[in-house]
């Protein structure tokens, strides 16, 4: 289970809506509460995909490293990655799967007509062959 607090959730939705109709991406920082992941901070990152970003995103490893450092400096961990699917369901696409990493939760936000519609979280495996869905909760502000 991954639970996103209201402040980071607001940041993620706002980033996704503002980046629409392009895909946005970012990092989620937080901590483990037993088996649960709790997201306390969201860091919007630049989509560095070289090409049309309407349906693609790419994270720079340097940005991810910086986010990881920022998390550690605050006593938090990098626990997830989020990105948006403009005018498309929040499913985990083949492209998502083939460029994923099994260590993080992948939260996908569906933005329809510029407005947040729904979201899902996924846990890909190490072989990038499949992703299990993960229970996702968020706190509305």
């Amino acid at each position, binding site marked *: 289970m991954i639970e996103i607090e209201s402040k980071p959730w607001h940041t993620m939705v706002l980033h996704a809506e503002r980046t629409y109709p392009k*895909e946005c*991406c970012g990092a989620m920082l937080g901590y*483990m509460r037993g088996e649960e992941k709790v997201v306390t901070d969201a860091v919007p990152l630049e989509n560095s*995909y070289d090409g049309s970003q309407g*349906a*693609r*995103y*790419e*994270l720079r*490893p*340097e940005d*991810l*490293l910086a986010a*990881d450092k920022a998390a*550690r400096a605050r006593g938090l*961990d*990098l*626990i997830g*990655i989020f*990105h948006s*699917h*403009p005018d*498309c*369901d929040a*499913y985990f*696409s*083949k*492209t*998502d*799967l083939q*460029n*994923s*990493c*099994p*260590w*993080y939760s*992948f939260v996908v936000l569906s933005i*329809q007509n510029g407005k947040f*519609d*729904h979201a*899902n979280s996924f846990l890909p*495996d*190490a072989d*990038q*062959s*499949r*992703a*299990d*869905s993960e229970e996702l909760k968020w706190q509305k502000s």
Partner: protein
Amino acid sequence: MAKILIPTALRQFTEQKDSVEVDGGTVADVLHQLTAQYPNIKKNLFTDQGKLRSFINIYVNDEDIRYLDKDATKLEGNETLSIVPSIAGGAIAVAEPETAALSNEEIARYSRHLILPEVGMEGQLQLKRAKVALIGAGGLGAPLGLYLAAAGVGRIGVVDFDVVDASNLQRQVIHGTHDIGRKKLDSAGDRMRDINPNVRIDKFEVGLSSENALEILKDYDMVIDGTDNFPTRYLVNDACVLLKKPNVYGSIFRFEGQATVFAYEDGPCYRCLYPEPPPPGLVPSCAEGGVLGILPGIIGLIQATEAVKLILGVGDTLKGRLLLYDALGMRFRELKLRRDPDCPVCGDHPTVTKLIDYQEFCGLRSAPPPPVQAEGVIDPQEVKRKLDRGDDFLLVDVREPHEFQIARIPGSKLIPLGELPKRLNELNTDADIVAHCKSGARSQKAVDLLKQNGFKHVRNMTGGILAWSDKVDPSVPKY
């Protein structure tokens, strides 16, 4: 000693340490030391062939080793190493390969399917790869959406532009009371995703039309018709024939329903059965004629069963058979259907080779607009004032007795439209008469009839009892 920062998810292999210090002269040495110390971390970082996994980047301080000497990069002993994955993605796959496997979560979810030899792993993967277009998220669309999502149909395109109304809830079980006023697409989408988050739902918030039908439907393997009007039914049929996609058909009325599969292999299409639509107004819609709430559940699930059988390629489909269901008699009957070689769409020499104007085809465009009669009408507020003033007039309700039981205007006299001709003697031709019904159509007929019979002061209350509820007395229920 070099310090390796351990990502959160890998700390389960490092006794929960967030960093590990190891000795080594190169990056390769250090990683080797790490995996020697914590063997379980190895498969997360390296493939079975011992290569660093493709999504992993190793940083020495702030430098990616790809731009240094790769894993031969030398270390002095005071560096910090970070394990940073490459992450990318996107809504649309460059080339979406066939779904190769089910996740453990899916295997658990579909276990009762997987142990059926007729479905099994291969069949469940076929369901996952299947793309089904569902026209309408109403009476038939509700059970269809619920069960197709639950069954694991991978992609479901839903076409609907309606919002949930209180009068839908008696049968459209995909929507709940708290969904009233929401778009049916959103309400149905949430419910389907709740049942099965593995399903991809494509929402089309449009009315299916000759302009958009081929474009919308071309990406799907089959079309399920959950609509209740003739223009869309002919449109869906013709589009399916043109696109060579099966049309899983169902229709409902009051206590009876029908289902079959049209435009499948060498079977007939809807036009082979009904070459021409009925004259407008002859066959009432469910909104006009009513429908037993459970009926669309039965018919929709027959459609869902046929859709799943088509996907799996098992059993005998309803191709060439029209299944008739009568809820009151609780009987199923079957009619044989054959493809008509002279069918204008699917026959040997088709004359309809592209989509046409289906409103016109069904005679709806050419129907004359109801005559506007500024004279002879009265609005509900004025009727209320007449009642309050105690004017001497008669308010005649021309609806049916069962409608009168649902809602009535106090002081009105019930004479159903059908009985009016033989009950004219109950009325005075000189009296001030106002007629009303549910929405104003039947009472207009009553007004016309009364005028033809010499009644001098007859008016129709505009908008009927629905308008009365809106404008005068909200405590009168709408139905």
